[in-house]
């Protein structure tokens, strides 16, 4: 990797980790800290659609976020599976999968030390484990997992293609990659092509933009006010309230929220670049922008 690219990637990673560390620090002083385990935009069932996952109790915080996890897993059977969640944040999905979907074990990996520390002290240490690391250099052996889960995280990665190669490496043949994120319309097809090139065969694709917009329309303002009252800072962009740039992008459909289910084939990823230069540039711009948008005022 050329030096300039490597130092740019380091800067993006540092920015992302810094934002999440600042967010965790801000939460740490609030009454929501121990309850807040998810940092995703959530999922709302619309027009007679089934609500994904089991019925969740009233006191369960961020039910919409938990439903997004179940929606992304879909009907993939994780019974007895070794599962990896890349970009696990505060560990909500890891805990939820461990509790409800009968895997043998779930590992969460995140860039931010403070998120890993929170998750490690929150979830059952017999069924879950957490580690700090980067998505483009997963600290796990080849074919170590039956399923890799990745939710609303990949757009922040300095190299999407390095991430896809790593997913292909740590998944056993036949294993599942359960993958959801906001994809700017222009990079959507190139990402699907790159996944296919890495031996990650598309088995299911759902555009859940409307479900995510539904969740944000109904919940974001309430979450923003609660967090602002507790922490004294406005976190509108984090909760994706109406008027935030992330919300607008989804509502105007300049980005789509896709939930993908892919299966690891025997095919080995080819050498060389997976993305055309203009696509790689668009992906880099998205990662850079995410760092800027999620900046937390530490004053």
């Amino acid at each position: 990797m050329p030096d300039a690219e490597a130092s740019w990637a380091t800067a993006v990673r540092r920015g992302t980790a810094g934002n999440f560390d600042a967010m965790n620090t801000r939460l740490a002083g609030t009454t929501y800290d121990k309850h807040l385990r998810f940092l995703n935009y959530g999922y709302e069932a619309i027009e007679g659609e089934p609500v994904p996952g089991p019925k969740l109790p009233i006191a369960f915080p961020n039910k919409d976020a938990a439903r997004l996890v179940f929606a992304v897993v879909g009907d993939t059977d994780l019974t007895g599976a070794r599962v990896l969640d890349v970009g696990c944040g505060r560990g909500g999905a890891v805990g939820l999968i461990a509790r409800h979907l009968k895997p043998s074990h779930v590992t969460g990996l995140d860039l931010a030390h403070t998120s890993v520390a929170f998750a490690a002290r929150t979830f059952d240490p017999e069924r879950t484990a957490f580690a700090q690391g980067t998505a483009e250099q997963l600290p796990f052996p080849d074919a170590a997992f039956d399923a890799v889960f990745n939710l609303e995280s990949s757009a922040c990665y300095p190299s999407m293609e390095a991430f896809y190669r790593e997913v292909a490496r740590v998944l056993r043949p036949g294993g599942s990659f359960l993958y959801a994120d906001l994809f700017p319309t222009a990079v959507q097809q190139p990402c699907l092509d790159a996944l296919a090139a890495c031996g990650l065969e598309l088995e299911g694709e759902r555009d859940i933009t409307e479900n995510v917009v539904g969740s944000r329309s109904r919940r974001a303002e309430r979450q923003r006010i609660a967090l602002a009252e507790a922490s004294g800072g406005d976190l509108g962009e984090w909760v994706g309230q109406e008027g935030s740039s992330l919300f607008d992008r989804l509502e105007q459909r300049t980005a789509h929220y896709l939930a993908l289910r892919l299966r690891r084939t025997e095919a080995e990823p080819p050498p060389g670049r997976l993305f055309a230069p203009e696509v790689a540039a668009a992906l880099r711009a998205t990662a850079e922008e995410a760092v800027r948008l999620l900046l937390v005022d530490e004053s």
Partner: protein
Amino acid sequence: MTAMTRDEVLTWLRGQLVEVLEVEPDEVDFDTDFAEDLDADSIDLIEVVNNLEREFKIVIEEEELYDIATVGQLVDIVERHQARSA
């Protein structure tokens, strides 16, 4: 602190719910369902539980809240903690 009776805990909780959820006192009893009867959400419950932890000097784990639906079940949790620390 002397352990409160179930009725005393209910009375305290009723005051909380009237304040947090702006419901009427007679809407709150042991079998009142937080979601169905009071239209509470998890953010409301976090506020109530947080005040309850402070008032009764107990720490309620997230896991204990997993299965509660009614006011009475929250009273059960307080009772369990009081018995433990008595």
